């Protein structure tokens, strides 16, 4: 069985950044396994700009951002497989790969999970109505339009204000499609404020908050949807039903980390993030299996994916040197105001970056880290938004002595 020091599953933003970082740490024997026929993953279909502001201090299109990493992968002679699907992963870090050349077992010392996300579908959110053609998830539509040069419709309603939906509202408008409205179930958008401005308001596309699709019509192709306004408790407000004639419904209703392989390998998942539970080095409960990027938690911007991947590779290097020992283990506990945290546990108590998502938008908030009654750190946040990740670094002197760790937003 071929052996590899590090196998990275997924050649998208996270996998590429992890591979490059591994090489920089002096790890030589790396293999990236990618199921698509190119590296770069979803970045390749994101032809809009705005990528790289944090990481490279310049605005890049998705393919440009990916190319910076692909160039490094090639320059550093990191090996990768394309059109290759990992069909099995064991807790012993044995990987089975299927591609045109056959079915191959690999044994790795380290696995980095970087499989990204899939999109939540109509079935998962249970939209009632008929089952015609013309219902697309935003990412699938983006692939059809940007990579395959196909069109998907003429009059479109978008449900959900996730970032891909917002980006697609603009993209479709530029292609001459009429984007009638973007309906969002929640009273606030789940997309980044800059996308709402640049993709909707700049193009006069109305954003209907607290609205959802309650019926779909169409025998062959979709012929219309009914939207309605939702009250505070989620019920339909009487008299707010409105039929809209359209031929396409685009769904941007959330992403689900793609953790089928992780589950198979016995990795414990976090119910809230949908990703593996990890320690501060991105290591799962299975020693030597790490996770980064959207398979770990859904990120807001790709720069944070790259930074996270680089950060967990520190742990990968430590693991290979036998230095990633557990000193003791404590769970990071969330109190009010916060939806999730990564990492979920601490074992090393060195410098650690925490990522959070909040439950609701708000202004002038303080993130408070406590150990019992002692306040370890406070961070003032001018504005918080569920669409944006909060990243906070605590240094070793703040963490060394703690017995417990609780975090709240006040």
């Amino acid at each position, binding site marked *: 069985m071929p052996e590899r020091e590090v196998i990275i599953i997924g050649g998208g933003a996270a996998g590429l950044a992890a591979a490059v970082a591994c090489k920089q740490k002096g790890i030589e024997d790396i293999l990236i396994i990618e*199921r698509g026929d190119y590296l770069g993953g979803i970045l390749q279909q994101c032809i809009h700009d705005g990528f790289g502001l944090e990481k490279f201090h310049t605005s890049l299109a998705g393919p440009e951002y990916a190319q910076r990493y692909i160039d490094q992968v090639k320059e550093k002679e990191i090996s990768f497989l394309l*059109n290759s*699907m990992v*069909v099995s992963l064991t807790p012993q870090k044995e990987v089975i790969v*299927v*591609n*045109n*050349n*056959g*079915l191959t077992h690999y044994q790795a010392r380290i696995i980095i999970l970087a499989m990204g996300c*899939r*999109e939540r*579908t*109509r*079935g*998962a959110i*249970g939209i*009632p*109505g*008929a*089952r*015609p*053609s*013309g219902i697309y*998830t935003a*990412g*699938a539509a983006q*692939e*059809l339009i940007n990579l*395959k040069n*196909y*069109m*998907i*419709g*003429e009059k479109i309603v978008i449900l959900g204000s996730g970032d891909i939906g917002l980006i697609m509202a603009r993209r479709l408008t530029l*292609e001459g*499609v009429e984007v009638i409205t973007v309906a969002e179930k929640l009273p606030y958008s789940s997309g980044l404020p800059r996308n709402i401005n640049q993709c909707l308001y700049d193009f006069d596309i109305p954003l209907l908050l607290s609205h959802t699709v*309650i*019926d*779909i019509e169409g*025998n*062959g*192709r979709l012929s219309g949807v009914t939207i309605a306004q939702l009250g505070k408790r989620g019920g339909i407000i009487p008299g707010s039903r409105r039929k809209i004639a359209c*031929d*396409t419904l685009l769904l941007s209703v959330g992403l689900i980390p793609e953790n*089928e392989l992780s*589950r198979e390998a016995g990795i414990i998942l976090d119910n809230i993030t949908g990703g593996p539970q990890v320690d501060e080095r991105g290591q799962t409960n299975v020693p030597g299996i790490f996770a980064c990027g959207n398979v770990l938690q859904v990120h807001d911007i790709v720069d944070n994916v790259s930074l996270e991947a680089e950060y967990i590779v520190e742990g990968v290097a430590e693991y290979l040197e036998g230095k990633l020992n557990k000193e003791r283990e404590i769970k990071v506990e969330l109190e009010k105001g916060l939806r999730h945290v990564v990492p979920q546990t601490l074992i090393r108590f060195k410098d650690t970056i925490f990522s959070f998502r909040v439950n609701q938008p708000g202004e002038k908030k303080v993130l408070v880290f406590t150990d019992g009654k002692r306040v370890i750190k406070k961070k003032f946040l001018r504005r918080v938004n569920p669409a944006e990740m909060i990243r906070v670094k605590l240094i070793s002197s703040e963490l060394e002595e703690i017995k417990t760790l609780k975090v709240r937003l006040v």
Partner: protein
Amino acid sequence: MKTKNNRFDVVIIGAGVIGCAIARELSKYKVNVAVLEKEDDVGWGISCRNSGVVHAGFNNKPGTLMAQFCVEGNKSFAELCSQLDVPYKKIGKLVVAKKKEEIKGLQKLKQQGDTNGVDNLQIIDLNEVKRLEPNIEGIAALYSPETAITSPYLLTIALAENALDKGVSFFLNTEVKSIIRLNNSHFRIKTNKREFTSSYVINSTGIYSDYIARMVGINKYRIYPCRGEYHILDKNVSWLINHLVYPVPQAGVGGLGIHLTPTIDGNILVGPSNEYIKSKDNLSVTSSVMKVLSSEAREFLPLISPGYIIRSYSGLRAKQAPSSEGGFWDFVIEESGIVNNFINLIGIESPGLTAAQPIAKRVVEIINKKERLDFDPSFNPFRKGILRFEEQNEETKKTLIKQEPDYGEIVCRCEKVTKKEILEAVNNPLGARSLISIKYRTRAMMGRCQGGYCQNRIMEILRESFKLSPQEITLKGNNSYLLTGYRSNEVSKSCQKEKLLSLEEELLV
């Protein structure tokens, strides 16, 4: 065995599981048979929208055709599936009583089953229920080890392909518009495409069978569409149950109650509901029923969570009993008393799938009595389906990829369907070309991402295989086109012209 001028001995209208079973049964004889189907593929009506259960036969009133054919069908189903290379699993069924009052209902069912000739029925107590189904709430159950599951659409496709192989002609996208009786021995059937003539007409049109019968002046039948909605659960939670789990049926309801059915592919179905509706083509799902399904299922299986649902859909029952009455009316399988050689199949609802083979045999008997059909010794009951890569052992997988590298390209990641399987489905012998046809044949797009990853890839394979333009690709035939919004070539050319002109004009100014 194509005949001149679209003349056939027998025309079967409707290519559901019943129509296809009759076609196959007739293909054992020397007769020219055509099957007309209004959809783009076989089995898209009732046949692909049910629980996929091979019933044992204890739900049906003794002495009815339903009871007789269900028991017969159940006993020969395994053999049928093995001949046709269709999946079949005898997993057994529990009808679970939740309250003491319901135990009587179990005894009644058992008695009925015993009378009907169902084997091995037994009433089991709480401990045994818990042993068989640790996650199910109930105090006792009727255990029926003979109940099995199959894939209703793969069976329909298999029956059709086997018949096709023996020379039965299938006409898809062919909707019957009128039927004229020419003389005592011939019918002229007008469709949206062409005309057919035949000596016999078999009306196996499920929900539309009353409508088709009326075309020749038979007005005595009435079919009420009764909708059943389902949830499909993620394969991740297939461990929740081991058997089919049903409630004790309520009198006067035209269904078997909301139950839990493991599918042959490892999902669990929750449903179906039971609602008489007006329209014969309304396959919507409704928010009220979706909620009821979840809450009723939770009464049996408290562990069920809405997060497990990957899709909801609905099917229709072809009921003869009006909503005021409910319950089941027996199958009608008869030659019309007023129109010779016109055979009606009316009210073929549950257990129609189980009974398909005996029903088909009965239809052939009716014809045989009048015609003395010649048996065709070249009939081959065996047919091969599409080989599933994922179900093979590792050595076979390796060999397959070596022989055919397309097996090494996994297109649908959730169900692990390879490009080779997709290509075989695309090139299916019936000539069905829509995405749903590929989905039913391979399971691609049926998994938890619902085609999010593979649908675009499959459209590409379909387009390349038949050199289709993007606008010609459909989800399920007719006008269910997927890629649209293009200006037609003519329009875009003229637009370009105008643009150029205006540019030139601008330059001139």
